[in-house]
């Protein structure tokens, strides 16, 4: 069964704008990860945030985690056309990784 649910399902923005994607989950987690998938490719790991962390940064990426609300957000700042991809959150529950259906991000040049 799916664990994480990304919101929105699709997002279209102009280059230079910020993109925010959200992930909600149902059960307690050990950690949450975000992955990116370019069309026709495998998933690429972006960032991992542990359940005792609230915020993490990696370059233009900022991830927050609110365990009380069982939600996480991924912010991409100053987006580029190359950021066009699907973004998935994955939650680790007792060593069992569950993925959501993803948010399809389109960045228009």
């Amino acid at each position, binding site marked *: 069964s799916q664990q994480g649910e990304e919101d929105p399902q699709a997002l279209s923005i102009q280059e230079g704008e910020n993109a925010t994607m959200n992930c909600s989950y149902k059960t307690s987690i050990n950690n949450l990860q975000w*992955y990116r998938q370019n069309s026709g490719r495998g*998933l690429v790991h972006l960032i991992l945030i542990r359940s005792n962390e609230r915020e993490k940064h990696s370059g233009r990426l900022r991830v927050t985690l609110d365990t009380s609300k069982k939600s996480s957000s991924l912010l991409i700042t100053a987006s580029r056309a190359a950021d066009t991809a699907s973004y998935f959150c994955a939650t680790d529950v007792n060593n069992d990784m569950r*993925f959501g259906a993803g948010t399809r991000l389109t960045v228009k040049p």
Partner: protein
Amino acid sequence: DTAVSQTPKYLVTQMGNDKSIKCEQNLGHDTMYWYKQDSKKFLKIMFSYNNKELIINETVPNRFSPKSPDKAHLNLHINSLELGDSAVYFCASSPASGVFEQFFGPGTRLTVL
């Protein structure tokens, strides 16, 4: 050098056939996985192997059988293929199970006619 590789990239076959998808990782990881991604992009874990031992086996039909000759390889064999098996299958690996990022292969698009 490709970290996680899969062959073939595309596989088109008839219903009822038996087929295999191969996966190899050169990262020295202990755990490997197989995922199925359907047309709606849902990614569902099918199996994982840790040091040649099956540690997760989701509710996958027994027509699907993972085979791991060594810790660098995890092949997926599918018997009596059905239309509903059409999907993209991804292999992945991680240093160990649990709190580690996973490295994904490029995927194998299986089409059953």
